[in-house]
């Protein structure tokens, strides 16, 4: 049963537009080597590609690798096989959320969810509200940045009131129409 799921997930990745390039990976390690946050990852992108090819797809989706991707594109620019690695990382993140596989111990899904709530409410994002929302789940991170926040406030760099766009309501409707009900995260 599990093998069947793995095979389905594997096919979904390898048949997708960015994902099919994984088939040409030569496992050279340029991606992991060039990644600024590779040390934080359970596996570097190279190893994740090996896992996907090997059929350990659930493990690949449940790993924190893609969530640590900063989207700096250094790997993608240097990949000798021109694999769109960053694009694949986005795909893995989307798939892991859809399947409920996103790693519980990584904080980025919460940050991104808070971000999305901002966009849905106001059409724009203000840092203070974003931090307040995210801080409900991760108060330590927000407290750690409180001294800075005070400084920023003093310098007029922190906006506490939302700047709502005129069409916020309609934009929200559009996003919902895009077929994605807001995910509980």
């Amino acid at each position: 049963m599990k093998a069947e799921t793995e095979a389905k997930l594997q096919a979904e990745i390898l048949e997708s537009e960015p994902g099919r390039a994984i088939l040409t990976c030569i496992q050279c390690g340029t991606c992991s080597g060039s990644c600024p946050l590779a040390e934080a990852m359970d596996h570097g992108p190279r190893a994740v590609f090996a896992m996907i090819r090997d059929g350990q797809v659930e493990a690949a989706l449940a790993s924190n690798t893609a969530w640590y991707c900063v989207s700096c594109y250094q790997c993608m620019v240097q990949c000798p096989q021109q694999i769109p690695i960053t694009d694949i990382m986005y795909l893995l993140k989307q798939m892991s959320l859809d399947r409920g596989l996103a790693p519980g111990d990584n904080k980025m899904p919460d940050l991104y969810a808070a971000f999305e709530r901002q966009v849905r409410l106001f059409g724009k994002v203000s840092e203070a509200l974003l931090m307040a929302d995210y801080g409900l789940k991760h108060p330590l991170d927000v407290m750690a940045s409180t001294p800075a926040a005070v400084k920023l406030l003093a310098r007029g760099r922190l906006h506490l009131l939302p700047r709502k766009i005129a069409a916020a309501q309609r934009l929200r409707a559009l996003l919902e129409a895009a077929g994605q009900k807001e995910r509980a995260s």
Partner: protein
Amino acid sequence: MNKEIPRIGVYVCHCGMNIAPRVDVEQVAEFASRLDHVVVARDYKFMCSNPGQELIVEDIKAHNLNRVVVASCSPRMHEATFRKACRKAGLSPYNFQMANIREQASWVTDDSRLATAKAKDLVAAAVGRVAFHRPLQTRRVEVNKSVLVIGGGIAGIQAAISAADAGYKVYLVEREPSIGGHMAKFDKTFPTLDCAACIMTPKMVIAGQHENIELLTYSEVVGLEGFVGNYKARILKKPRYVDEDKCTGCGTCMEKCPTRRVPSGFEEGLAFRPAIYSPFPQAVPKTPVIDAEHCRLLAKNKRCGVCAKFCEADAIDFDQKPQYLDLTVGAVIVATGFAAFDPSSMVQYGYGIYPEVYTSLQFERLNNATGPTAGQIVMKNGQVPRKVAIIHCVGSRDRNHLPYCSRVCCMYSLKFAHLVREKTGAEVWSFYIDMRSPGKLYEEFYNRVQAEGVHAVRGKVAMVTDIVDDPGRGSLTVVAENTLTGRNLRLPVDMVILSVGLQPAEGAGEVARMAGISADGDGWFTELHAKLAPVNTPTAGIFLAGCCQGPKDIPDTVAQAMAAAGQATALLAAGTVETRAEISSIDPDICSGCKSCLQVCPYNAIYFDEGRQVAVVNDALCQGCGSCSATCPSSAAAVAQFNDSQVMAEIDAILA
């Protein structure tokens, strides 16, 4: 048009399992047997085998066949084989046609029904056209008994020596002032670590002194035309400004030249040379050249002439002009070699930005006893490095640069690792993607270097940077993943060597165009057949040697050079070649004398007979391109084997 009634035999080949299961060969043979003029049609396991050919020979005799069609592989593969079989049975080899049902049907179609239908059409086309084939006449023409070798690296030198030893005149053309090529820059060669100079210098001397070899250095081939046995080459001799006959090679001019700081190409920019120079001490010929771009007198019109003042042989000649030399040769060996990949475009490795990042050719010079440091492996500050990184696959196996494996880099990188360990005792970290050591004693060499304590890390380096975490431990940081442990390394080092890949030599495309040979997508020249004709080209009489055909190491290069010389001398030894039968002719009874054909012929092979007021083909010059036949408004011009009735019959049969 044909006096005799065609009696055609058709032979459908199974090619083992290559054609047979996909194409229903029995059905194709049965179909063929019902075509017009077909007397006998058979299928057989391997038509190219001896019994297969015998089958044809026997049928020709038994059934009085006067035309033969074989449906098998590409005519580029076996047309010659079956033509020979026809000739053996007393049939003109030109009364033969092949249908290619392997490369064009069984191998490119999954659907058996469609493949069989296609094979039938192709067989019908061959049968349709062969009915219009006629025996053709050819002549034998003399072969000029000399060889032109283009390129004076180890491939060209070896090819020249081999052909010259066989007794033929050889012109060896090299664009640099000396022969020697890349190999002259090396100090040691893998896997035996024998001294490159010790094996190379004698070869250069032999080439320089051989009574059958005429060296044309500082020269370039600028024109090549003609055909097998009779090529006409035009050579540009660039002005040396030094008379080769007078110069004794004493070197005084080079010592006295006031221009001292021209970066030396031979030393890969690691040293300077004067404006009058010989690239290296063992150069052949020894005659220096004046680099007109940097000479005070020639470039800047300043009063100088110091070299001329000191030359006791009075060999300096500032008035030399470019000269052209026209040669006739029977065969051409192309040995234009390679260029090292320029890593400046891979900004992540910092070549040209950080002084302690070297290319492999720079390292060769650094390590060479005659190089800028007299063979000391030291940094720019004169100190011995404590930690050295060697990066494999720089440019190679990289779709952003050279998509292919350059084949020699793993081995020369191991050689570098050994030399650094041996000469400096420094820690060596060698970063590879896959260690490629396929060659005699190569894996053994890898094992030896491993045992010498070299750190071989499986991982392509992501970045070389001068941002160091601990300034006391090396001026550079190498960043890479060790893919075998999955951990990232930030390795402080003093020196980085980039093992750059190989790419076709500059100007190779121009040579290909002149010689009428083709190059693959990467620019390497294409051999006639990868396995069976590796040094031949589609143009008869033009052969390939060395890296111009693809990256290869010295043993393979020398072997290929000898093979190319063998092919060329075999051609010369035969003395004559058969002229091509597939050439144009113009029917004087139909020709209206409009002269359209004269204008389109690329070989000036058509002249106008004023007396008869008709155009006439000179069959010694005609190459059979058919420009005339396609242009002729009255269909008087036709290329044998490709005349209107033959081509139309082929099209007719397909669409029947």
